[in-house]
């Protein structure tokens, strides 16, 4: 980042002045959802958004993806649900959520006019559950898109997640596609041998975009207690620890599918965001970052603007995937 900027600064002072006059446009079109800027709150850490209203400047958020919503309330996993790891966070919330009705009644009204585009993360244990939530949300005022989290266990297929098998992915996505006209992002699990196969299946089934990555499967053991630390034994690893893994998957998928990619996993700075965009992401999401810096989106936006000004880039389309060429 600095190398680039130094070069142009040291080039011609006049040229630099001209470049600086560019007013960067941070708008991006994420599969039909127009975001004022490419920074989104990832599903989960940000809850239903309103909890962060006093902490995060919502103008710095192009969109909010709310925590996973299922048809009925889910109780989630027994505590402890959280553990800190080296530059990472292990969580096993278990998709605890109050269910669709309460989301629509209680949470949505608090967010509808908040500013950022609103995307609902949908979870389910069967194709039927996914479809029913999608169909209920279709046409609801204030909802701009859906993100289908296919990392949940597929009860019919013996508990393996939908997102680890291309055929199951295709089935689930097609079913949801038939039930909604909303832009459809499919959120993939990184715990697979070949993420491209899954992404392609989702695209073929009608996905408008691919979100990745969800958390890496992991665990910790409480040595004193001689048992797994998390109540659920296994959890998902997020945060800067996983960033290089996420970036590689975004790179691979962006080279495989034609629909836009929403990149996430450990994003911690404008420089990280630029890495994802240069790898081919249309927009980026921040999750774990909210826990240690609720103002992270503000900083990322400021850094992106500064980078674009310094390098004479008027819109992010100019650098999307540029590291691939």
């Amino acid at each position, binding site marked *: 980042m600095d190398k680039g900027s130094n070069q142009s600064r040291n080039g011609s002072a006049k040229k630099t002045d001209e470049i600086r006059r560019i007013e960067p446009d941070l708008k991006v079109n994420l599969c039909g959802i127009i975001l004022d800027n490419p920074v989104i709150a990832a599903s*989960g*850490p*940000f*809850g*239903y958004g*309103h*909890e*962060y*209203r*006093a*902490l995060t400047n919502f103008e710095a958020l192009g969109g909010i993806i709310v*925590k996973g919503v299922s048809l009925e309330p889910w*109780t*989630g*996993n*027994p*505590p*402890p*649900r*959280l*553990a*800190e790891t*080296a*530059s*990472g*966070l292990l*969580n096993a*919330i278990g998709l*605890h*959520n109050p269910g669709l009705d309460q989301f629509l009644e209680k949470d949505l*009204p*608090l*967010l*509808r*006019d*908040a500013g950022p585009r609103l995307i609902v993360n949908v979870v389910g244990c069967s194709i039927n559950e996914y479809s029913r939530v999608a169909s209920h949300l279709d046409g609801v005022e204030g909802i701009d898109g859906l993100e289908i989290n296919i990392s949940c266990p597929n009860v019919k297929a013996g508990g393996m997640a939908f997102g680890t098998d291309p055929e199951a992915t295709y089935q689930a996505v097609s079913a949801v596609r038939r039930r909604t006209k909303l832009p459809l992002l499919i959120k993939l699990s990184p715990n697979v041998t070949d993420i491209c196969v899954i992404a392609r299946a989702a695209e073929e089934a009608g996905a408008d975009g691919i979100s990745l990555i969800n958390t890496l499967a992991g665990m910790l053991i409480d040595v004193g207690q001689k048992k797994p630390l998390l109540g659920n034994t296994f959890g998902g690893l997020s*945060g*800067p620890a996983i960033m290089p893994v996420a970036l590689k998957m975004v790179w691979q998928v962006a080279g495989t599918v034609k629909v836009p990619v929403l990149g996430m996993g450990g994003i*911690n700075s404008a420089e990280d965001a630029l890495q994802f965009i240069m790898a081919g992401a249309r927009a980026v999401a921040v999750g*774990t970052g*909210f*826990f*240690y*810096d*609720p*103002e992270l989106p503000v900083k990322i936006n400021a850094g992106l603007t500064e980078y674009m000004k310094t390098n004479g880039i008027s819109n992010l389309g100019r650098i999307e995937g540029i590291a691939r060429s």
Partner: protein
Amino acid sequence: MWLLKTKKGPEYQTEDCPVIDKQVVASGYCRVALHAPVIARKVDPGQFVQIFMPPEHRDHMLPRPFSIFGANRKNGELVILLEIKGRGTDLLAGTGPGSSWKLLGPLGTGFPALSPASLLVAGGMGIAPLAFLAASAAVPCTLIYGARTAGQLICPQSDLNRPGLSLLETTEDGSRGEKGTAVDLLSRLIADAGTVFACGPRPMLAAVNNLCRRAGIEAWVSVEERMACGVGACLGCAVATGSGYKRACRDGPVFRAEEVILDG
């Protein structure tokens, strides 16, 4: 408008707080006074703050939760009693006056107001929220403060020296105060108690709850859970209750004792 509490301003917020005083009150424990005028003005007993790790230690993702041990609305002083438990508390304890901590607060649902003849029961570090509760009380009250041994009764006497507060210390080895546990003492005093307020290790809270239920006395407990957001968003701090999992950071940390499943 959709702000949660428009008239009062936000319930909680982040605040950069200079450390104005740090005292090592016992080996591994310190009392830290911060200048936190916004949070100090709003905080109620039983509420807590999240303290962010310094940005140069970003390998530690999570802020650490601490009860408010004292707050002075007038001069904006906020006091924390801190036990070094691991890397995070070690880092915090290693800084002192001259540095600044970033706080998020005040957070959570605190204690209800004290009624006359309230009995406060603190085990170990459970003293932190109860000392603040006692200090804020409009009525006289009794505080039972127990630990294994005298060296673990680390709360400075000066912080417990308040008019209207009768302090009863217990140690399991009898090295200070009465010999026995805080619960032993509670069982002897419970007949005359109004409401009971307790904070300490889970087994102690379970015993308090059992005693109070049998005696038909209202009891409130403050519980600890691992936390991430601290504001009720992430659902990471689940506490098992009779009506499903609740959030320690928002629905608690103070709950009616009968509500929480304490011996699970």
